[in-house]
């Protein structure tokens, strides 16, 4: 397994990855609280984007409603914690199957009935909206008034119950991102991964070649949903509050998928790079606006939108593929 993880990696990319990882591990000693929070946000989007990329980047199934898996993961773990005192890591054991089951349900309906392309994308939005409105009216999870996790002063970091200072959360999400990255690489190098790529490139040809496309598309949705569920658990315990409007909203789904699209759909490093670019851009714009004393609501977002527009016009494949070529770490043309 380790061999599969490392074979075919250009030495230069190993070195660069090690440098990046080293910098990220060391970061909490060098950055202030604000930057640490930004880094947490970046890694959160990198992780969630990586999870989305499994479905879209590898298997070619465009999900525009990925917030549903974030929301389900967050709500399951948070509800178990608030109501029954169940630790989040145990809650995760419930959140993952529930998110995967939701993914399986959506995937089954869509793939069985031949809903594909744009229609599939809109179906995923519909289910996310469905969940949003449902949770908005569900009293067990405090409906629209939101679910809050108890916040107290902690003498020490409690990793088991995920209660503590930002540095602990930073290392948790960093570890998760590394695991997700390795998992995606393993998947891409596996039989399933090759089948996914075949389906992404030409589904009919894949079927003609004897691939059970229904089954492998189901795997893609379920694995993607399961991986995304942890993002929800992390979100809930880091921010300590959940509102259906916020976690399930379409803007959340868009937020998750912008990173990998900007970074490069279907690439391993794209979601990570995209998260750095986008969150970095948003925060920089915010600081610049504040520095210039401009307090115009919406102005930052306008610039953000213009930057998105420029990137998508100039770099249709995302930022990573051309950058990878320039760094000399492109492998298999990726």
């Amino acid at each position: 397994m380790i061999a599969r993880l490392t074979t075919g990696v250009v030495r230069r990319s190993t070195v660069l990855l090690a440098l990046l990882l080293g910098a990220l591990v060391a970061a909490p000693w060098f950055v202030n609280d604000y930057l640490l929070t930004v880094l947490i946000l970046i890694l959160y989007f990198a992780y969630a984007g990586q999870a989305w990329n499994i479905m879209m980047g590898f298997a070619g199934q465009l999900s525009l409603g990925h917030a549903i898996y974030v929301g389900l993961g967050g709500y399951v773990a948070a509800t178990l914690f608030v109501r029954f005192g169940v630790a989040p890591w145990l809650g995760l054991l419930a959140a993952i199957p529930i998110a995967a089951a939701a993914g399986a349900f959506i995937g089954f309906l869509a793939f069985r009935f031949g809903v594909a392309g744009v229609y599939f994308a809109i179906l995923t939005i519909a289910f996310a909206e469905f969940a949003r409105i449902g949770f908005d009216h569900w009293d067990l999870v405090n409906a629209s008034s939101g679910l809050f996790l108890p916040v107290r002063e902690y003498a020490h970091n409690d990793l088991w119950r995920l209660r503590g200072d930002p540095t602990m959360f930073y290392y948790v999400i960093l570890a998760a991102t590394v695991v997700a990255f390795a998992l995606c690489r393993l998947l891409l190098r596996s039989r399933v991964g090759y089948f996914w790529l075949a389906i992404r490139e030409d589904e009919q040809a894949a079927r003609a070649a004897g691939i059970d496309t229904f089954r492998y598309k189901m795997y893609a949705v379920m694995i993607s949903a399961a991986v995304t569920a942890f993002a929800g658990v992390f979100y809930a315990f880091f921010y300590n509050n959940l509102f259906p409007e916020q976690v399930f909203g379409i803007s959340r789904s868009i937020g998750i998928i912008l990173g990998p699209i900007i970074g490069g759909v279907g690439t391993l490093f794209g979601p990570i790079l995209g998260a750095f670019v986008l969150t970095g851009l948003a925060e920089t714009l915010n600081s610049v606006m504040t520095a210039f004393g401009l307090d115009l609501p919406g102005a930052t977002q306008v610039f953000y939108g213009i930057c998105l527009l420029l990137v998508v016009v100039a770099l249709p494949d995302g930022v990573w593929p051309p950058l990878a070529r320039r760094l000399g770490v492109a492998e298999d043309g990726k």
Partner: protein
Amino acid sequence: MPLEVYFNVVIGGVLTGLVYGLMALGLSVIFGVVRVVNFAHGEMMTIAMFIAVLAFSALHLDPLIMLIPIAAVMFVFGYALQVALINPFIRRPEHTQFLLLVALAIIIANTLLIIFGPDARSVQTAYALDSFQLGPIIIDAAKVYAGAAAILFTVALFAFFRLTLVGKAIRACADNYTGALVVGLDVQRLYALTFGLGAACVGAAGAMLVLVVDVTPMLGPSYTLLAFVIVITGGLGSMPGALVGGVLIGVTEALAGLLFTPSAKSMFAFAILVLVLLFRPQGLLGRRLS
């Protein structure tokens, strides 16, 4: 509840649904021909709604009079958009088009936020509180005007596509892209015309919708979603389908608001969408998908 309450609500739903239908028609025309899903559809409608609000508050021009000018402005906007940004994206993958239009939606919504601020705005016409009474049934006058205008606009568009040469050329592009190129149609210009027409539809719908709802800069996404629901329910690319879908969703929302809580009303719309996608993916009036 007395029966006439239901009648009132259903008729109100039908009339609002006609306006929804016109809005969705814009999306349907664009997708049916250009094959691009306009994720900035709701935002384009908010532009039209703000123009209507501005024209009313500054010049006391009634939104129904402004209907045609607003549609014309939005036509130019849509045409320019297609020429400048979307034409190069026609052959690109769906997620890239999605990103382009989402970026556009973000820019539009936040530009409106900068100009108009976050508060809800509305148009208080002289007939805002008027109503027609037919026996026990009471109907808002504003909704009747809006519904009637929506029908007229749709009929005009329908006639354009059926009777004029340009309309036929656009339909030819939709049916067979390569064929249209072969016979020498200027596909890029026809796409721009189509996007302009779609924008004009949503512009006209926005001008009428200000009669019944308040507008905020962030109204866009929920109407984009609503347009998706309607268009898929009625059948993508089917013009009567968009109106039928609009009416169906309008009535569903109105009844759900009456029988359950208004905040849950769009849940029923999405339930209808899911059912249609699963059991009749081509939509109620759509042609069978190949």
